[in-house]
Structure formats: structure tokens, C-alpha cells
């Protein structure tokens, strides 16, 4: 099980939680399982083809997953997957 950190804009889609546990041996599997359990998350971060939208940054243990192996990045017990969309607010 990995811990997925949920950004403020997606918390409603997971019942208000700030973190959610999800199984999977790669970052892609973890997010697929998360989106199966919480389809409203998938609607926001996945394209109709099931790919991650380009505007969604994923960090695995505080490292940019684009610089690791993206969805193939191996994860396991105790790892943290952070979903990080840009925020615009300032006022």
C-alpha cells in the first residue's frame, strides 16, 4: 500500500480526506486503483484514454516522477505518491 497525498481541489472526490491508501507495485497502478475506488478523481486527472493529463504533476517520495520512470516508477509499502496540480489563487 502506498499513501497518496490528495491536493485540496480533489479532496471532495475522496470524501474530504487529505491522504488515501492505495495498492499497486508501480505509481501507475496505484493511481489506477485510486481512480477505480474514487471515480471522481479519475475524471479530473485522467484523459478519456486513461492517461495522466499533462497538467497533473506526480511526485514519488518528493521526487518528480517525470524524472523517475513516470507511471512505471516502482512503489511499495510506505512510499508516498503526491498528486500536484498547479494552483492559481493569490487574492
Amino acid at each position, binding site marked *: 500500500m502506498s499513501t497518496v497525498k490528495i491536493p*485540496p*481541489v480533489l479532496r471532495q472526490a475522496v470524501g474530504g480526506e487529505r491522504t488515501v491508501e492505495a495498492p499497486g507495485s508501480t505509481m501507475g497502478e496505484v493511481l489506477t486503483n485510486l481512480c477505480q475506488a474514487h471515480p471522481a478523481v479519475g475524471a479530473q486527472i485522467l484523459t478519456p484514454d486513461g492517461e495522466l493529463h499533462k497538467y*497533473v504533476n506526480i511526485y514519488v517520495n518528493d521526487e518528480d516522477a517525470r524524472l523517475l520512470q513516470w507511471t512505471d516508477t516502482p512503489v511499495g509499502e510506505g512510499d508516498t505518491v503526491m498528486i500536484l496540480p*498547479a494552483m492559481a489563487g493569490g487574492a
Partner: protein
Amino acid sequence: MSPSYQDLLAQAREAIPEVEPSDIAPRVESGDGPLIIDVRETAEWDQGHLPGAIHVPRGFLESRIGGVTSGTDQELLISCASGQRSLLAAKTLADMGFSNVTNLAGGFARWKQNNYPVEVPRILSPAQRSRYSRHVLIPEVGEEGQLKLLDSKVLLIGAGGLGSPTAYYLAAAGVGTLGLVDDDVVDESNLQRQIIHTTDRVGMNKGESAKQAIAALNPEVQVNVHPFRVNRDNVLDLLDQYDVVVDGADNFPTRYLMADASLMTRTPLVHSSILRFEGHASTFMPYDGPCYRCLFPEPPPPDLAPSCGEAGVLGVLCGVMGNIQATEAIKVLLGMGDTLSGRLMIYDALGMTFTELKVRRDPDCPSCGPNADLQLRDYEAWCAGVGSHDHAGATA
């Protein structure tokens, strides 16, 4: 018998070699001379000194010399008004183990009589010395740093949640010129967090309102009110007038515009964004570190990117994030410390945690990468369109 003043001078003269101004001036002028330590009092130093000299008043010599020298074998030239105080100071340094110490014969007076170049330091006025005394006391800032702040110009995009604390603290810090870009007026619902505004200024342009608050806090600060929205027609002219830009905008089109314009004008960009209990902050140094688009190549679609007006924001969050921005701006202006360049800081007020993520330059970055064709675009249309397409520039 205790030694007299003359005895002390004679002893020092035996131990310390002296040089005439004519012997050392060529090296000083070419910039490869010894490190010059001027031990006179502040009022004397303020009247002028040898070029490149460092001021260490005699009374602080022993305590401060370690901080300004690289080691006891560094070549030092000690100078005062006539060469006597400096001779005794040089002897003290020799006693402290400095092995390469020379005294300037005749001191600053003889140097000046021979028409060698003199630097007259810019100095803080007595009122400024008092106002900024807590900055001047910090070695990393000091009088020199404070003068630099007074000469600095910072542009703030937005005088709202983030811009309020940022502008207030930068004004207090003595940043000489602040530009405030905001076309909005103060609303009652702003006052829960936009602390630079007041109840009796509801309805006033936010830049004007902030200008009044700043004038009451620090009348020395020049405030330029820009009561319009920044756009691709005015952004480059605006940025050319400032040293650093602080982004406290509340929408993606402005944020991506500022990201590109900061690259085009090579203006450091201090970034923060906020929502509910969470804040992001980073500093983008053009072509030196990653840019905003290395971090976020594309904006999310509007429904995944609510504004504070739509989703709410904890008022005090603005203070934390705005002051992180003010801190970063001051560090960039003074060239001190480690900025957030290459790092995204995420503050979660609910968990009271700061998380730091690494941000690296993207070799394929559409804005700052080597093959980027950087041009200002229609950011409104682009931000409205990228969510439904999934590759950069689809609707540019």
C-alpha cells in the same frame, strides 16, 4: 615603568613595516593590492576612504577582524587618518598572529594629499540608521545591504491576499520603490485577509489603498500604482522598470504571462499561490534555475483550478505565504542565502507541515528550453483551451 604612548608607537614601528602611499597606490589602483582595513571612526570613514577598503573601527578590531579576513596569512594594509592609530592596530593584529601586516604611513591624509583616488561611501541618514537599525545590525545586510534595498524596485502583481503582506513588509524593510498592479477595488470580503486595506477604504482601488497604508508606515517608499490588469501589451515595459517581480495573481493566464515575461526580461520571479489551507512558493531565476513552466508545463482546466473567491482561503495563510515571498524578494535583491530556486515549498496549514519538492530545468521546456520559441501569447484563450487538448500550444 609603564610604557608611554610614544613608547607604544616606537615598539609597534619596530614590529610593523610601513609603506608610503606612492609605494602601494599602483597595486591598489590595479585592484591586486592587499586587503585594506580602515580603523577610523564611522564619522571619519563617511568622509572618504581608500578604494576597496573595509571599515573596522579600532574598538571592534579584535572582534571583527576574523570575519573580514580569509586567514592570518592574508596580506593586510592598515589605514587610519595619520598612520598612528593604524600602527597600533597593526601591532595588535601581529600579536593576534597575522603575519603579513603593513601600516600605511601618513594614513588617509597623506594618501589624499597625493591625489590618489578616494571612495566616498554612500551612507544612511541618521533617520534611516535609526529606522533600519535592526537590519544594519545583521552582518549579512548591514548598511550596504540597506542602501541596496533603498535603491531596489519590486513589482507586485496583485495587491490582494498575497500582495498585502508582501507589500507591507517590503515597505517596512525599506525597499525603495514598490509597483502595485491591480485593477480591482477593495471589497468588504477582502478584509478577512488583505491586511493592507481598511474598512474605510472599501471601494477604493487596491493599489491606491495600499499606497495610503505604505505612506503611513514608511513615507520614504515610492509607490507606483498601476491600476490596470497586466497583459501582453504592457507587461514587458512594466517589468523593465523593476528588479524583481512578485506574483500574487489569482488566475492562470496572468501567472503564465508573468512566467514568460520574466524570462524575456530576465527578471527574477517570486511565486506563490494559495487555496484553502495550502500554499505553494518558489523562486524562478531566469535561465539560471527552472522556470514556472518547467514545473507546470500546462495549466489545469478551470474546474480543477478554482480561485480563492470560488473555493475560499484561510485568511492567515496569506500572511505566511506573502511573507515567504517578501523574504525571497529581499534575498534575491541582496544576493544572500539560498532562495527557493529549484525547489517548490508546499505549506499545509492543517497539518502544519512544510514539504519541499525538487524542481529541475526541463530540457524540453516550451518557455526556457534551448529549443523554445518564446513569444507572448493569448493566455486567456490558451488557459481556457489546454484542458480539452492535451499538448502545449494547441489553442495558442
